[in-house]
C-alpha cells in the first residue's frame, strides 16, 4: 500500500497548500466561495492523511518488510497490540501521526466552532493548513514512512523492548494530542491578529481549546512519568531529560495562560500578555518536537531521532519571527480596558502567578539549552543534569505552591487587611501545625518539611473555599448542604474545578517531596538468602530470594527472579522481576536484554525490585531493592488533576434551564429563550 500512501501524502500536501491560500484569501476578501473551498480543503486534507495512516497500518499489519519503516519497528512476532503503536514508534511514522491528528483537530475546530466565532475560521484553516503542509513536506523530503528497501528482509528488527509497554502505547498519543492541539488556540490567536477582530471573542474561542490541549498534555506527561517509572527501571519518574523538559515547557506557559485569561475576561487587562503566552506555548511545542527529533541534546528518547531536526529548526525560527512580527504590528489595538484597583487583589496575585510559571518555564528552557550555550560561549560542553535542575527549580516550585494557596484567598479587585486575616488564619495555622508535627516526628529534610507544610496550607485553603462557598449558598439561597455543594461546583465549574486541580497539584508536590526519602540497596542473593532495608516509615522490609525461573513468551525469552517480601517479619507477598531477551521470528536475539521491574505499591511506599542479572549462570542473583515513598500519590494526584480539568471543561450551560424551572414560569420562557438565542 505504499504507492497509495505516497499518493495520499502528495494529495494532502497540495490540498493543504490550497486550503491555506483559500483560507487567507477568503478571510481577507470575505468571499464565501473561497471560504467554503478552504473548509472543504481542511476536510480533504484530513481524509487524505487518514488514507495514508491506513496504508501505513496496512503495511505494518501485513508485515511488509520491504518497507523500511515496517522492517525497522516490527517483527513477525510482535504482538498485535503493539503493532498499532508501531505507527508512532519511529520518527517517520510519528510525523505522519502528528500531521493526521493536527488535520483532525483542524476539522473538529471547523465543525464545532460556534456561529459567533465563525469569522475567524478561514484564517484558522489557513494557519492549520500551513502547519500540516510543513509536516507533510518534512515527511516527503526527509522522512518518508513509505520508503522501500532494495531488498526484503526475512524478518524485521522488532520494536524496542522499552516501547513494548502499555504505558508507551498511550503516552505518546496523549502527549502528541497535547502538543498538537495547541496549534488550534494558536491559529485562533493568529486569526484574531490577522483579522483585527481583537475584542473578547477570540479569547472565548481559544480558551476551551487551550483547556483541551492542557488536559491532554497533563495526561501525556503523567503517563510518561508512569512509563518511565515502570519501564526504565531506575526507580524514579522524572529525570529532567531534555524531552521531558520539552513537554513541561508548553504545559507551564499554558497553565500561566489559563490563569491570566481570567484577568482578561473579568477586567479586560493583559491582552498583549495572553496573546504572547499562546504564541509562545505553540512555539515551545514545536521546539519540543525539534528537541525530540533532532538529537541536538542527547536524551533517553533517542529512538525518535533523525535528520528532519533542521527542518524543524527552520520552521521554528521562521514561524517565531513571522508570528511575533504580526503580533507587534497589532499591538496598538491591544490596550487594556481597565486598571488595577489594588496591589492586594486576585488580579495582582495572578500576575505573580504568571511571573512564576513563566519564570520556571524560562529556567527549564535555560537549563535545557545551557549545554549548547556553554559550548558556544566558553567552548566546553557541560552536563546539566538533575542536580542542576533541582537546585534551580525546587525553590521556584515551592514558591509557586505557596502562591497556589495564597491566590484563591484574595478577593478580586481589592482585599483589605481584616479580611486577609480572616481568610489566612486557618490555613496558615494548619500549615504550621503540619510542619511542626513533621519536625517533632523526626523529619529532618528542610525542603521536604517545607513542601509538606505548604501542601497542607494549600489543601486547607481549598477545603476552606469549598466550606465557605457551601455555607454562603446555604445562607443566601437556603439550599441544603449537599445541594449547595453540587450547585457551587456545577455553577462555578471553572473556579471549583480549578481548586480540584490545585488539590491534585498539592498531592503531586507531596509525592515529589517523598522522593527525598528514597532508600535503596543492592544485594547478591542465593536462593533462600535475604536482604533487609529500613523504610523511612520505620518498617523493616525483608527480601528473600526464592529462585530463578526461565520460560519463553511470544517474542522473548524470559528469566525471572522471584523475591518474597516481608514487612516487619510478616510475609506480604511475592514480587517478580524479569530479564527479557527479545528475539525475532527466527529466534535470533534482537536488542540488548531488557529488565522488567517488580513493584508493590501501597499508600505509604512502593517496593521496587530490579533483577540486575545472575552470577556466572547460576541462581545466585544480583538485585536492587528500592523503597520509594509516596509514589502512589503521584498517580492519585494525577487522577485528581485530570478530574479537576474535566470539571472545568465540562460543556454546556446546564444550570440556567434548571433555575428557570424553579422560577415558576418555565414553560413560557423556555420557548422564548430558545428563540432569542437563535437570533
Amino acid at each position, binding site marked *: 500500500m505504499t*504507492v*497509495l500512501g*505516497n*499518493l*495520499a501524502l502528495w*494529495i494532502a500536501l497540495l*490540498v493543504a497548500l490550497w*486550503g491555506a491560500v483559500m483560507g487567507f484569501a477568503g478571510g481577507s476578501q470575505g*468571499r*464565501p*466561495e*473561497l*471560504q*467554503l*473551498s478552504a*473548509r*472543504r*480543503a481542511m476536510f*480533504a486534507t484530513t*481524509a*487524505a492523511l487518514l*488514507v495514508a495512516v491506513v496504508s501505513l497500518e496496512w503495511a505494518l499489519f501485513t508485515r511488509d518488510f520491504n518497507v523500511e519503516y515496517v522492517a525497522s519497528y516490527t517483527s513477525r512476532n510482535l504482538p498485535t497490540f503493539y503493532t498499532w503503536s508501531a505507527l508512532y514508534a519511529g520518527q517517520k511514522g510519528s510525523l505522519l501521526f502528528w500531521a493526521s491528528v493536527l488535520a483532525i483537530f483542524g476539522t473538529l475546530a471547523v*465543525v*464545532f466552532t*460556534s*456561529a*459567533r466565532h*465563525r469569522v475567524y475560521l478561514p484564517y484558522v484553516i489557513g494557519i492549520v493548513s500551513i502547519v500540516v503542509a510543513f509536516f507533510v513536506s518534512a515527511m516527503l523530503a526527509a522522512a518518508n514512512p513509505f520508503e522501500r528497501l532494495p531488498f526484503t528482509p526475512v524478518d524485521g528488527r522488532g520494536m524496542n523492548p522499552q516501547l513494548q509497554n502499555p504505558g508507551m502505547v498511550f503516552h505518546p498519543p496523549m502527549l502528541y494530542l497535547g502538543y498538537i492541539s495547541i496549534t488550534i488556540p494558536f491559529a485562533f490567536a493568529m486569526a484574531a491578529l490577522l483579522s483585527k477582530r481583537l475584542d*473578547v471573542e477570540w479569547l*472565548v474561542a481559544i480558551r476551551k481549546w487551550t483547556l483541551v490541549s492542557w488536559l491532554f498534555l497533563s495526561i501525556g506527561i503523567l503517563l510518561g512519568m508512569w512509563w518511565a517509572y515502570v519501564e526504565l527501571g531506575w526507580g524514579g519518574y522524572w529525570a529532567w531529560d531534555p524531552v521531558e523538559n520539552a513537554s513541561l515547557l508548553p504545559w507551564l506557559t499554558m497553565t500561566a495562560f489559563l490563569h491570566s485569561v481570567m484577568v482578561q*475576561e*473579568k477586567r479586560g487587562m493583559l491582552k498583549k500578555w495572553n496573546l504572547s503566552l499562546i504564541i509562545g506555548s505553540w512555539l515551545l511545542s514545536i521546539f519540543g518536537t525539534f528537541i525530540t527529533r533532532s538529537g541536538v541534546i542527547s536524551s533517553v528518547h533517542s529512538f525518535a531521532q533523525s535528520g528532519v531536526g533542521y527542518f524543524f529548526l527552520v520552521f521554528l525560527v521562521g514561524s517565531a519571527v513571522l508570528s511575533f512580527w504580526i503580533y507587534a504590528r497589532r499591538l496598538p489595538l491591544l490596550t487594556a480596558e481597565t486598571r488595577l484597583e489594588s496591589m492586594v487583589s486576585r488580579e495582582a496575585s495572578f500576575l505573580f502567578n504568571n511571573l512564576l510559571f513563566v519564570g520556571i518555564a524560562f529556567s527549564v528552557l535555560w537549563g535545557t539549552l545551557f549545554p549548547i550555550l556553554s559550548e558556544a560561549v566558553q567552548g566546553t560542553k557541560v552536563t546539566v543534569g538533575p542536580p542542576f535542575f533541582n537546585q534551580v527549580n525546587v525553590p521556584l516550585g515551592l514558591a509557586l505552591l505557596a502562591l497556589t494557596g495564597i491566590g484563591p*484567598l*484574595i*478577593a*478580586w*479587585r*481589592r*482585599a*483589605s487587611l*481584616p*479580611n486577609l486575616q480572616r*481568610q489566612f488564619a486557618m490555613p496558615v495555622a494548619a500549615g504550621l501545625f503540619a510542619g511542626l508535627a513533621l519536625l517533632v516526628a523526626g523529619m529532618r529534610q528542610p525542603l521536604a518539611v517545607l513542601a509538606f507544610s505548604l501542601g497542607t496550607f494549600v489543601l486547607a485553603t481549598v477545603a476552606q473555599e469549598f466550606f*465557605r*462557598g457551601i*455555607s454562603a449558598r446555604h*445562607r*443566601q439561597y437556603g439550599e441544603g448542604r449537599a445541594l449547595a455543594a453540587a450547585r457551587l461546583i456545577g455553577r462555578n465549574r*471553572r473556579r471549583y474545578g480549578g481548586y480540584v486541580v490545585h488539590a491534585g497539584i498539592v498531592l503531586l508536590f507531596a509525592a515529589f517531596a517523598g522522593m527525598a526519602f528514597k532508600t535503596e540497596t543492592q544485594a547478591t542473593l542465593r536462593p533462600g538468602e535475604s536482604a533487609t532495608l529500613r523504610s523511612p516509615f520505620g518498617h523493616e522490609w525483608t527480601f528473600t530470594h526464592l529462585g530463578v525461573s526461565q520460560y519463553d513468551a511470544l517474542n522473548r525469552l524470559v528469566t525471572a527472579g522471584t523475591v518474597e517480601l516481608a514487612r516487619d517479619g510478616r510475609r506480604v507477598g511475592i514480587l517478580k522481576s524479569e530479564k527479557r531477551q527479545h528475539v525475532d521470528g527466527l529466534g535470533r536475539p534482537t536488542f540488548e536484554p531488557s529488565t522488567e521491574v517488580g513493584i508493590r505499591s501501597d499508600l505509604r511506599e512502593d517496593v521496587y525490585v530490579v533483577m540486575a542479572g545472575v552470577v556466572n549462570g547460576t541462581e545466585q542473583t544480583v538485585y536492587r531493592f528500592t523503597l520509594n515513598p509516596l509514589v502512589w500519590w503521584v498517580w492519585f494526584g494525577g487522577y485528581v488533576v485530570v478530574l479537576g480539568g474535566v470539571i472545568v471543561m465540562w*460543556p454546556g*450551560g446546564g444550570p*440556567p434551564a434548571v433555575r*428557570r424551572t424553579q*422560577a415558576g414560569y418555565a414553560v*413560557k*420562557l423556555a420557548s*422564548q*429563550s430558545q428563540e*432569542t*438565542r437563535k437570533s
Partner: protein
Amino acid sequence: MMAAEVVAGVALALGLVWYVMIPVLRPAAVRPAAGGADDGADEVEDLSPRTVALRALKEIEFDRATGKLSDADYADLKQRYTAEALAALRDAPAAAAPSPSLAATPPRAVCPDHGSRPEDEAVFCSQCGRRLAAAGAYCARCGATLEAGATYCNSCGVRVAA
C-alpha cells in the same frame, strides 16, 4: 496490486480536488455558511459588558458572603458595578434579550399615589383603582418624579441622564 493502488490514489485525488474546487468553480451555488451547531447557551462564554457587569455583581456578593470582601469595599464596588451594569443594560436593551424574563415582563406601571405595582401588566392600581400611566422615572438621589427626557432632576439638580 500496484495498478489497483494507483487507480485508488488517482480516484482519491480526483474526488478530493473536485470536492475542494467546486465552490470556486461554481461560486453561484454557494450560499453564505449556514449556522451550524451553536453552543451559545453557556453564560460562562458570554463576555458582553452586561454579563461581565452582572457577573461582577454576583461575585462581589459571593465574596462578601464568604468573607473575602469587607463591607466597606463591598459597598464601594457594588456602587461601581451597579453603575456599569445599568449602563450596559441601557446600551443594549435589545441585545439584552437573552434574559427572557425581561422580554416577558413589560415595564411595571406606577400609581402616582401608591407607587410601583406588584402585579405584572397591571392597568389599574389595585389599591385606589386609578388608571396607571406608564412608569415615569424617579431621581435616584431625592426620589422626585422626573419629566420625560430630563437630564437633571428638577428637585435636587443632580445629573440623571446616563
